[in-house]
């Protein structure tokens, strides 16, 4: 056990950092312990070797390389922070507002197509799916846009028993009116005003009247 306790301190003994009394204890132990004497010798040689090792110098261009790297990093950071700091609060608020409005527009464009007309849309009642398709085709031929559930659809993909919307301008309204007359679907005269109009087309066979009654 004496050996264990002593061998723990051999490093400090070799360093010369032990107090006089501890140093004396170890010297006494060394006189009778071959193993510790061998370790002390090994430690002495190792330490003198290690302590003699030269310190590697930094490369000659170290500070230049560092400055380049710092500048690169600083530029990247500064361009963002300066941009934010340069703006006075109301400008920042304006940017936020513009971004929000722009984002909303893009969102609208992507989800629904924009509905330019928000007038009360007249309803054109047809008998059934066949009537619906006939009106849709006429609208297409008149140069109107036909929409199914808010989306523009090609002329021959209209399913029966669904509502359609016809989006059209003034001249197209007149053309459609002419085309629908021989088909037995009288379209009311074009409402006053410029721009686009919407006509809802509903088959009687499936849709109850909005007022609950039946034609």
């Amino acid at each position: 056990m004496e050996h264990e306790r002593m061998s723990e301190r051999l490093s400090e003994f070799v360093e010369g950092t032990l107090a006089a009394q501890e140093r004396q204890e170890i010297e006494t132990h060394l006189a009778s312990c071959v193993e510790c004497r061998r370790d002390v010798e090994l430690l002495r040689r190792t330490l003198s070797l290690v302590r003699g090792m030269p310190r590697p110098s930094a490369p000659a261009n170290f500070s230049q390389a560092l400055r380049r790297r710092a500048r690169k990093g600083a530029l990247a950071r500064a361009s963002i922070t300066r941009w934010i700091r340069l703006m006075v609060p109301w400008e920042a608020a304006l940017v936020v507002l513009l971004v929000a409005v722009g984002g909303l527009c893009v969102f609208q464009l992507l989800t629904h197509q924009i509905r330019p007309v928000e007038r009360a849309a007249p309803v054109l009642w047809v008998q059934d799916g066949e009537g619906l398709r006939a009106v849709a085709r006429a609208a297409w031929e008149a140069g109107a846009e036909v929409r199914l559930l808010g989306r523009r659809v090609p002329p021959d993909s209209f399913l029966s028993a669904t509502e359609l919307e016809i989006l059209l301008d003034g001249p197209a309204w007149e053309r459609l009116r002419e085309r629908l007359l021989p088909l037995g679907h009288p379209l009311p005269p074009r409402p006053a005003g410029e721009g686009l109009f919407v006509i809802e087309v509903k088959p009687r066979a499936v849709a109850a009247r909005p007022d609950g009654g039946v034609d």
Partner: protein
Amino acid sequence: MNCFEQCLRALTWAGPAPILFSMLSQATSERRLVRALQRGDEAAFDELVRLHQHKVFGLCVRLLGDRAEAEDVAQEVFLSVFVSIRTFRGESLLSTWLYRITRNHCLNRLKFLKRRAFDRQKPLAEEGEPSPVGTVLASASPRPDQMAEGRQMEVLLERAIGELSDEHRELVVLRDLENLSYEEIEVITGLAEGTVKSRLHRARMELARKLSPYL
């Protein structure tokens, strides 16, 4: 020159205390440097790099065992110091603080390198093949010309240090290569005095045993 320094000069003029004066004036110039650094003075950063690049780089080489990695980490150390100098309270010497940052950066890099080496390791490593840790650090393998130059012992020593565990290596490097005091090592590693001493002894014995065939 500030008032403190003038008083000091006046005091030391009379008495024979040139060593005390030089220590104190060193402390004053370090305080001045730190204050300039904290103000973001660019010239002060150049001065810091000029004064400490070899210490920082040297410690990186010793801990990482690879000059290219060491240069990269040493640059990172200075870049992080540019930012964190504001948190330096002067409770330790600037060099001790720098050593601590360097040591932490190196340990992180070692972890990263080992993980990478482990990921790249073949799934069925043969028995007796060097461990991933050994592969990372034994990159300081001797070149023929180094052996011919009579640097055999130095190269062997570098390899032996590279083969130590991270915990052992850092203590040998800080104490025996960088000649730091135990107090400084405690600050740098965050270890208690007893742990530093007992671990350092085990590290030195391990190194001594590795080198014993050549001693």
